[in-house]
């Protein structure tokens, strides 16, 4: 039956119910079996990463070679990312931080990275490539460091009165309803651990963990929300909805660029520092392009861009030679990450992340 006949039959009322059903089911089957043609972008490497971490500046070398950016699905926190990958989300590389590496190794989702395929690997800081759990038991490389920076308290000096900078600001009852905290369990629990003065804030003892829980429960009623994207925090701090929140270096650069009075605290208990990087998934669908992406992200040009526009440190020594000293001083970045990490509390892999997730979940679910 051609189109004209069909329309004629309908308008003349010659179409029976049965004919109509046949037509409908034919249409339905056709729709269901039509091949789903995906866009060309699907052929690029899939970079499962943080919000704002798939910008062209991160991987200029990749764009030069392949003419497009990789696909960049975002995750809100690393626990969520691991859950998605484990439940069958096929990606090439993911961007966890050294805090989470033990957990990722346990989950058995990564494959070792052949460092001889990375032209820039030799220029990386050795202190970063040999972080705990960055390498397997046989010395094989699982984690390629990319960026390093701080987690601390972002606050509005014009709206907050404090005598000295402390993590305590996030528990200050004077600013009830104007504070925010990361929704990431490992980071939130670590902050409570630092405030408690725990010997290892990333691996609390049972006693410390229950004290940390009390602290976080106490904090909950003071919070406006738990944030899961840095743009949410930046907007809320800019409008004055929040006066203080946990955050990262890039938010300082962004907000200062907008002319918002903002300070990144150097808390008396110690500023938290971390190193994040790339891991390669076992069943990576675009293995060769994934290697190109990793190599592009640790290239010196990518590092220069990262330092200048996001304010993070980079894993490639050469990138520091390309940035002016004044810029480094303004960004508070020493040329050696070890010096940077020595100034604060450097994150260590959490041995049992489930325990923290469970505890933080109980805090959030509590009445």
């Amino acid at each position, binding site marked *: 039956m051609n189109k004209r006949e069909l329309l004629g039959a309908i308008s003349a009322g010659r179409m029976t119910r049965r004919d109509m059903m046949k037509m409908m089911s034919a249409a339905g089957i056709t729709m269901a079996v039509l091949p789903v043609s995906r866009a060309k972008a699907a052929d690029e490497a899939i970079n499962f990463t943080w919000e704002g971490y798939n910008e062209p500046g991160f991987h200029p070398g990749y764009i030069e070679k392949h003419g497009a950016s990789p696909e960049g699905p975002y995750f809100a*926190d690393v626990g969520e990312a691991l859950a998605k990958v*484990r439940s069958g989300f096929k990606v090439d590389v993911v961007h966890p931080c050294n805090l989470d590496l033990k957990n990722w190794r346990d989950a*058995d989702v990564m494959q070792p990275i052949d460092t001889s395929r990375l032209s820039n690997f030799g220029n990386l800081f050795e202190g970063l490539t040999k972080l705990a759990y960055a390498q397997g038991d046989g010395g094989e490389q699982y984690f390629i460091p990319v960026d390093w920076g701080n987690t601390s308290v972002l606050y509005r000096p014009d709206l907050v009165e404090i005598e000295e900078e402390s993590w305590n600001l996030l528990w200050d009852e004077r600013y009830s309803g104007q504070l925010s905290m990361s929704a990431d369990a490992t980071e939130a629990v670590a902050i409570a651990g630092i405030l408690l003065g725990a010997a290892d804030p990333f691996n609390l003892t049972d006693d410390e963990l229950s004290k940390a829980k009390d602290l976080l429960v106490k904090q909950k009623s003071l919070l406006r*929300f738990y944030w899961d994207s840095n743009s949410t925090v930046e907007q809320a701090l800019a409008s004055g909805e929040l006066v203080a929140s946990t955050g990262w270096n890039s938010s300082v650069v962004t907000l200062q660029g907008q002319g918002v009075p903002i300070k990144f605290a150097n808390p008396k208990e110690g500023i938290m520092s971390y190193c994040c990087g790339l891991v390669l998934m076992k069943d990576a669908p675009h293995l060769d392009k994934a290697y190109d992406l990793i190599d592009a992200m640790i290239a010196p040009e990518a590092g220069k861009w990262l330092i200048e526009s996001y304010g993070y440190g980079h894993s490639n020594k050469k990138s520091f030679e390309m940035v002016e000293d004044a810029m480094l001083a303004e960004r508070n970045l020493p040329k050696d990450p070890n010096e940077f990490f020595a100034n604060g509390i450097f994150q260590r892999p959490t041995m049992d992340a*489930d325990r923290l997730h469970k505890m933080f979940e109980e805090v*959030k*679910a*509590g009445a």
Partner: protein
Amino acid sequence: MTAISEAASDQYDQPATRRPEWVDGLWLIAPTLAIVVGMMLVPLLAIIIVSFWTQTGFDLEATWTLENYALLFQPEGKLYRILIVKSLWVSLVATTAVVVLAYPMAYFMAFRIQRGKLIWIILLTVPFWTSYLLRVFAWKVILGFNGVINSGLKAVGIIGPDGLFEKPLEFLLYNPASVTITLAHAWAAYAVLPIYVSLEKIDRSYLEAATDLGDSKWKRFWRVTFPLSLPGTIAAILLVFIPTVGDYITPTLVGGPSGIMIGNSIANQFIKSNNAPLGAALSCVMMLAITVAVCLFLMAIGKKRLKGADI
């Protein structure tokens, strides 16, 4: 004569030799049945089975245990019990608000609109052509710190140095009330349509008879219109109440720390806490709680009405 009747019997099978009617019916519903079994029944069974397992590290331990359920009834499970009760309460308030708002709209469409009813129905559903997520986000924009309401109040001087409030109103967003408001709007169409249909079906001569027999407008409504519209109203209540209890995205976006519901907790068990069995057990308990709540509601309405309601 005989030839004709024989020909007729060839054409139309005798009732005795015909396939029973329900077999034909089975073919008709087969696609739907396949979807229901594949997309509903199998996952539901999987949830029930997993809820009796335990999680060790990244693996599921497939030995039968009541551990997950036991946890929910022990002191440590108190927060989940509170969360379930809270979710039922938020849904109940939202459902009440939806029905109270939807009823006059449906009444207006059924009794006051004479021509172009279709246009009104389409107009009513226009906001629902956008995605659910977008509607929730819209409420975030309306209720937010710099949102429509706060900027409006600022513009007329109620918020400001000389106004009634010094700072923008913060209680509008990130609490159970904002979840309730958002749910009440997001589900409105699901309530208006069934109520409208049952109002539309009412035989107008009953209303004339009631007036003729001396009922005032108000009395006529309560004695004739409202009881006859109950089937639609009950359907609306169930249509809104049941799905909203387990809602997850609304509290995530507008709930803030105090506005979370049981759906968030379940999602967290599956995603972040890496404890699928506990999440599954929580889902089962939630479904059970909803069933009990709905049964109580239907019992309160009464069996007789239920029969008449024809749902």
